[in-house]
């Protein structure tokens, strides 16, 4: 079975500063990786995904993530955050091959400070 660890439960950052949200996973087989964003009282929205190919993945709203197989990490980054980025962010992993259940991290709350 796979697992996901989001190392920070909350990350405060000033507006226009860069941010990195950390995600580590463990799996004995190949995986696909995702980042989702959740705004208050809403469902989760897909930010980006890594399936294969280039390890640097660009998503919506200026976010990007880098897959690092040796460190089993998939950290999310944005060079300059906006107030509107205040939300909760979830990392998720799914084993490759046919139907597999998704494993979500417990989430990281990003608070952008004006």
């Amino acid at each position, binding site marked *: 079975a796979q697992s996901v660890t989001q190392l920070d*439960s909350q990350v405060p950052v000033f507006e226009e500063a860069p941010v990195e949200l950390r995600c580590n996973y463990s799996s004995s087989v190949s995986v*696909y990786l*995702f980042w*989702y964003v959740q705004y208050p*009282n*809403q*469902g*989760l*929205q*897909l930010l980006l*995904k890594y*399936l294969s190919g280039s390890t640097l993945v660009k998503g919506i709203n200026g976010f990007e993530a880098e897959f690092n197989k040796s460190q089993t990490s998939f950290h999310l980054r944005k060079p300059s955050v906006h107030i509107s980025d205040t939300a909760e962010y*979830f990392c*998720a992993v*799914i*084993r*490759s*091959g*046919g*139907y*597999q*259940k*998704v494993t*979500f*991290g*417990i*989430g990281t709350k990003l608070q952008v400070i004006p």
Partner: protein
Amino acid sequence: SQTIHQWPATLVQPVGSPLSLECTVEGTSNPNLYWYRQAAGRGLQLLFYSVGIGQISSEVPQNLSASRPQDRQFILSSKKLLLSDSGFYLCAWSGRDTLGGQPQHFGDGTRLSIL
């Protein structure tokens, strides 16, 4: 394009009352369907998933049940709600791919409060 509808958005129910939450998907066929519960600080807990009509897999023992009477309809039910059933319930769908890797697409959720 595909859309997912989940209702109601909020619900307040007394302990011991029944529950029915509905989720429908449009614009796709044969989706995988999911029910999650989200508790503060605990991430998402998968409750049920379905790969086809009438095919329901339960992830955790509880007093909730799920049904899929139609291809794009997924219903979460309970005969008697408990206080511990309070939470934010999310429905999701994903496409089918033999290689896997299909992302999940979520509804806007139902905030359930048990009094």
